[in-house]
């Protein structure tokens, strides 16, 4: 859970930085998107780096889901008879929604790839000009896309708020001071990520980016 999760967080941050290029302008954004295909050239042929990254990320996602499924199944088996009366005393909202939050994120990732990678579900779907795709995506009359996007990003935020702390704990964080630090860092990193990702659709929605 921890290793695959942290790998995915590194990708999320890199992806966010790329997204923010939308504020620099259409040319910069499109140029960045094309550059992704040329990383590593001429050491590796065009698109190879991108495919390696896709392969690694897919493996990480699958590993993450498999580990989560094992944990969830074990938890079910470990308590076959439920409590009649159960009161939660700890366990933040983020910690309690890890599993369903993860499912929402998975559904979003599938939609997101069909929307902005393959362009299948995008109203423009022009793979040469991703900037136009993004602007078309979050147009005010397609408000439901923005709502789903926001929901998914908030799910990611909650997922990471518990996930980041949990990951460093799994990897052996063990001092009270370190725990406070890890929890604060998890909250800050999640908040920055949510703000960074949500800035794009809301900039399109308010006309800041068009």
């Amino acid at each position, binding site marked *: 859970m921890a290793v695959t999760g942290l790998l995915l967080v590194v990708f999320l941050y890199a992806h966010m930085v790329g997204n923010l290029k939308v504020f620099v302008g259409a040319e910069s954004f499109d140029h960045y998107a094309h550059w992704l295909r040329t990383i590593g050239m001429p050491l590796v042929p065009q698109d190879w780096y991108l495919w390696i990254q896709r392969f690694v990320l897919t493996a990480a996602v699958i590993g993450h889901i498999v580990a989560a499924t094992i944990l969830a199944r074990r938890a079910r*088996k470990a308590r076959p008879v439920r409590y009649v009366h159960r009161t939660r005393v700890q*366990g933040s909202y983020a910690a309690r929604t890890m599993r369903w939050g993860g499912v929402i994120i998975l559904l979003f990732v599938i939609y997101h790839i069909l929307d902005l990678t393959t362009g299948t579900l995008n109203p423009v779907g022009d793979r040469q000009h991703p900037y136009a795709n993004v602007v078309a995506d979050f147009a005010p009359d397609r408000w439901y896309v923005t709502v789903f996007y926001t929901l998914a990003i908030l799910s990611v935020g909650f997922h990471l708020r518990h996930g980041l702390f949990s990951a460093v704990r799994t990897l*052996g964080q063990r001092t009270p001071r370190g725990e406070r630090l890890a929890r604060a860092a998890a909250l800050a990193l999640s908040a920055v990520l949510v703000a960074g990702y949500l800035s794009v659709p809301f900039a399109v929605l308010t006309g800041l980016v068009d």
Partner: protein
Amino acid sequence: MDIQVRVWRQSGPSDKGRMVTYDVKDISPDASFLEMLDVLNEKLILDGDDPVAFDHDCREGICGMCGMMINGVAHGPERATTTCQLHMRHFKDGDVIDVEPWRAAAFPVIKDLVVNRGAFDRIIQAGGYITAPTGTAPDAHATPVPKPDADAAFEAATCIGCGACVAACPNGSSMLFTAAKVAHLGLLPQGQPERDTRVIDMLEAQDEAGFGGCTNMGECTTVCPKGIPLTLIGRLNNDYRKALRNT
């Protein structure tokens, strides 16, 4: 004070079990929760009914025998308190109090509120020991222990093995218990020879017993009557990582 208790009644391991409501009258606010159950049981015996079975021993909060889910919280509403040390003054006249046994596949119900915590014994057997020459007790200062280590080991050693961590865990995991035992011995020089095998063997015994996996929720440490810190689970993870490398 007059209260109502809804208690889990289960005549044996194969019985399905159900919640049964009883009126308990004239309870002193200074009575402990177990004394309240004693009063209920006296009445049940006089009425010719089967008394409610529950585990208890020292009633001083140090033996780890007692423990039940009270209104959905392990050991009831008071923090750092065992059920025997919980007093009725924390409830109000006329309250309806739900009482259930610990729920875990590894802790099968024997009768009513009594569960079999033999799974904890199997975890202890797997690694909760040190190699020490038998014979006369060594001098207390024969092996120097730094004060902070002694304090930290003692904090972990206060775990009484009541099972509240498992009962409260949404995953039914016993990680806090195992972590406390691993840290208790692992922090001391006497516990070093088995440090690597201990964590591996105890985790194996824990998995075999059918406990769930830890997802760092922290419910366990909140209900723990001894306040065993959640950081010990990180310590266990750290020990486990090193043990995998060393063995």
